[in-house]
């Protein structure tokens, strides 16, 4: 049975950091179109700090503690809207994972659900408002169904990625009512949401790294 321990988790976060750095310009470009052109810069700054923090951390078996560290680091380095949102997500995931030396499919799902709830709570948004939730919520649903159906973690996460891809595409078709893109009104149509895109990127890195 495939599980995720804290070592693997740290590797995944390093991979996310590289990916975000790689896609920094792309994410920033998306945010220039309908926001203020800093989403890639913000996340790159944050995950760079996460990677550095994790490399300095004493070995820690507790997956909850790793996730909490990531969340706190994001909160204190990203800024903007996405900082508190992603930060809260990982902190909440850490809270439900506290004390677990490894996450199996069910544990991963619990962490993911907690993360998504954290984003909803913090940002007071729901799916359909052209935010990261339009990637995260369908992904969470897909994950849940897949795991309930007996898929292993890797398969389930890939299904979540597929759902997130559709969610990102969906954001092109709707008007933003949360975040900076909402200032544009109808002019936000046709553009994909930067936060939904970064959520998809992270999920894909997880799927590839598992």
């Amino acid at each position: 049975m495939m599980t995720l321990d804290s070592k693997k988790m740290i590797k995944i976060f390093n991979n996310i950091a590289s990916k975000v750095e790689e896609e920094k310009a792309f994410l920033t470009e998306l945010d220039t179109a309908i926001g203020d052109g800093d989403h890639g810069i913000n996340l790159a700054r944050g995950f760079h700090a996460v990677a550095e923090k994790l490399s300095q951390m004493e070995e820690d078996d507790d997956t909850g503690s790793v996730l909490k560290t990531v969340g706190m680091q994001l909160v204190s380095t990203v800024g903007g809207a996405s900082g508190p949102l992603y930060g809260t997500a990982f902190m909440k995931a850490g809270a439900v994972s506290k004390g677990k030396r490894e996450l199996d499919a069910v544990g991963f799902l619990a962490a993911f659900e907690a993360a998504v709830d954290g984003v909803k709570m913090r940002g007071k948004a729901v799916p359909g408002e052209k935010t990261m939730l339009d990637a995260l919520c369908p992904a969470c649903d897909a994950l849940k169904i897949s795991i309930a159906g007996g898929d292993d973690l890797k398969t389930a996460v890939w299904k979540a990625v597929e759902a997130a891809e559709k969610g990102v595409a969906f954001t092109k078709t709707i008007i933003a009512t949360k975040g900076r893109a909402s200032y544009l009104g109808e002019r936000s149509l046709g553009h994909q949401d930067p936060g939904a895109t970064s959520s998809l990127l992270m999920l894909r890195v997880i799927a590839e790294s598992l």
Partner: protein
Amino acid sequence: MKKIINSVEKVEEQMIRGLVKAFPQQLKKLSCGNVVVRATKKEGKVALVSGGGSGHEPAHGGFVGEGMLDCAVAGPVFTSPTPDQIYEGIKAVATEPGVLCIVKNYTGDVLNFEMAIDMAKDEGIKADYVVVNDDVAVKDSLYTTGRRGVAGTILVHKIAGARAEEGADLSSVKAVAEKVIANVRTMGMAIKPCTVPANGKPGFELAEDEMEIGIGIHGEPGTHREKLAQANKVAETLLEKILADIDYKGREVTVIINGMGATPLMELYIVNDFVQDYLAAHEVKVYNTMVGNYMTSIEMAGFSITLLRLDDELKRLYDAKAAAPALVK
């Protein structure tokens, strides 16, 4: 991107250092980050903390001083500072009567300030906040993020700052800040975009004969694009929107003709020439006018018009002494 800087990474820190070095008797920078506080902490009064992304200079560091802010927290350009930065600022100036944070209505600013205030409260600091949302370019709806906070924020600093300096308690300072927020409206436009240093490319592009109406202060596009018109026509467009939002007729107002950063004073004065006549014709009495760069978007060219509806209390506080780098009364 053509800028007078040393490196994209050092913009915020060198800028804050440069500000503080220009006013060493009045300001100091906390060693933990880009947080500006008064050189001498003032006890016994409500402390005012503001901040947000950098790129709006002189906001907000330039408004730290007697009669205005106690602390300004500067994030990266156009990006809200993080909760721990804001918390350090709150902690540094916190007094027994408490701390009021003045937050502009952006998801990032609101979320980060809320988290910081929670942290401060956990440490036993009395802290509260108000959210400024004066930009009538954006629809104010329960189902959206609501209007943005823009140049009107300066008047919240000024008036709440004066009330705090008078020794009012936290709820009274908050109440007068909310009174300003309820009575202040702003609308802006741009003829040239700005470039976030770390990004390197302008937030939008405009043809030689185009302007953006309903612009914010983060280099983002406005609500719509038009052919560039005469200054009077442009000012009229903005004023119509402002006057339609709340009733200013027969009332006294403070006016801000605010430059976006690269707008020559020449143009702001030309705009003011029209604005004053327009207001007189619409039976709005001008109590005072400010013309200059107060809430900018780096090197954006354009301007915003702000009107604050006054009553006797607001007039008294508006006129009260202020001694901040960017506002002396």
